[in-house]
């Protein structure tokens, strides 16, 4: 697969992920994306300011779940 195909495929997959999770944790990113196109991964973007519409549900619990470190 060339790079363009891969990108289209990733886009399709992410659309599915958002749709399938309803308004849940994965889907909150949809609102985020609607405000600003996501920066390309390679661009090493500056940290995004915290937004109320951002993907916050699981982000703010990320701090806690490391305690069961397995690997």
């Amino acid at each position, binding site marked *: 697969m060339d790079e363009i195909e891969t990108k289209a495929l990733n886009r399709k997959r992410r659309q599915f992920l958002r749709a399938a999770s309803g*308004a849940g944790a994965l889907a909150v990113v949809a609102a985020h994306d609607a405000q600003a196109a996501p920066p390309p991964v390679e661009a090493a973007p500056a940290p995004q300011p915290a937004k109320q519409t951002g993907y916050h549900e699981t982000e703010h619990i990320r701090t806690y*779940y490391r305690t069961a470190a*397995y690997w």
Partner: protein
Amino acid sequence: MHIQSATGSVTFPPMGVPPPLPQEEQARADVYALIARLLLAPPDAALLASLGAAAQEGPADQPFDAAWRQLAAAARTTSARAVREEFDALFVSIGVPKLNPFGSLYLAGFLHEKPLAALRADLARLGLARMAGVAETEDHLGALCETMRLLIAGAPGGVRQPLAVQQRFFEDHLAPWQARCLDDLRSAEGADFYARVATLAGAFLSIEAEAFEVVAATQAG
């Protein structure tokens, strides 16, 4: 910032910080991490409070969404002590625990059987070895979810794996038995908070399976 290796996996400089993932991929990693965390140990009060605060607006029109809200509601009404007792009653026992969430048991009928050996071979190829002192074998459902998180997000100094590797691992080691195990957890005597964890995990892993199919179907067509 990163090096693309011949296998397509991305390595980070030893002291480097991984570049940000696309949000959907980070969300996948986070949900895997949460499920792993809850399956490997009961949540403490801080994690319960965080879960309880994760309320959302609007209707829950998808199974994952509904499961997420139910777990959040349960987290608001229970206590860390009650959940710990539930966890112990389900997963910890001097005799035979009610739940043995190990792939080998579900796939081969016994613990420490061939499926575990196959898994260990794959983990060795991926350069993963469990931390010293960890009691659960690698085919524990929580350990497998934690492995998925690492494949997606990498770790400081670690390696992110491309989607095809994630899919292969998922289909070989999780897909064949996770639904049966989660059904058992959901219907286990005394499961309340953990029944909701099982529902959330099941809904999420269904999405994962379908999302991998999106890729497979597109590549085939």
